[in-house]
């Protein structure tokens, strides 16, 4: 997998976006764009090509779950890999996200290595 892929990081907390950006940089990903909620993310997705979406679940305006459903319902965006970030691995949430077509999910807190593994798993699945 190319580390030059473009990644959209979606989180309502600017600090958390910085944290994820920092973790991604530690494992070699530099091409990163950001959005502060699902709506802003959709605007970014309409204006440029993104290879992977990493989105927080809990956000005001449009949650990560609503963004996931919007992406999967859009003819142009529906195949974009989607990694959901959540502070809680509660069973119901995981089942809900899988049913909506999430590519993978990651539970906070996580290290750069775990994030890298999750991304690699997504692209291995996509390639097979």
């Amino acid at each position, binding site marked *: 997998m190319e580390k030059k892929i473009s990644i959209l990081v979606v989180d309502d907390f600017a*600090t958390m976006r910085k*944290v994820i950006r920092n973790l991604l*940089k*530690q494992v070699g990903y530099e091409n990163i764009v950001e959005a502060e909620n699902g709506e802003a993310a959709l605007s970014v997705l309409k204006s440029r090509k993104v290879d992977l979406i990493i989105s927080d679940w809990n956000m005001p305006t449009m949650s990560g779950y609503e963004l996931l459903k919007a992406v999967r319902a859009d003819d142009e965006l529906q195949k974009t890999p989607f990694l959901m970030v959540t502070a809680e691995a509660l069973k119901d949430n995981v089942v809900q996200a899988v049913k909506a077509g999430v590519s993978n999910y990651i539970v906070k*807190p996580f290290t750069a290595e775990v994030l890298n593994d999750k991304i690699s798993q997504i692209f291995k699945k996509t390639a097979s």
Partner: protein
Amino acid sequence: MDVRFINPFLEGTMSVLRTMAFIEPRPGKPYLKKNNVAQGDISGIIGLTGDVRGSLALSFSERCIMKIVSNMLGEEIKSMNGDIKDAVGEITNMVSGVARKKLEGMDLTISAAIPTVVSGKNHSILHVLGGPSIIIPFETDHGPFVVDVCLNA
């Protein structure tokens, strides 16, 4: 408060700070707190509802939280800015998430509200149930912080 409910918050705190900030906090002996004065300079507080009701607060000394956030962001933070406030909310949220996952293993389903952050010397921590609360004190190489939990369990 049932002491079995202390460990998920203690372990959650250690896990979050170890993973996200590369800091190994050293827990002290828990004690009962009967007033609402915060033990630190900035605190995150989050309400919990479901099979157990109450609230969780994390209260950090200035030096401690600046080091934690510096490590999380990979850049040195020299003042109590907006990044610190955001990070305290996010850390509180993450600790609550890890603790709730552990409590789910005890057949307890608990939801969390959105965290709020309060700062300033001698600020108040207003628990949903009013108190008293259990304090778990922690030491780090960069100063102290506490976990302050008040549950109806």
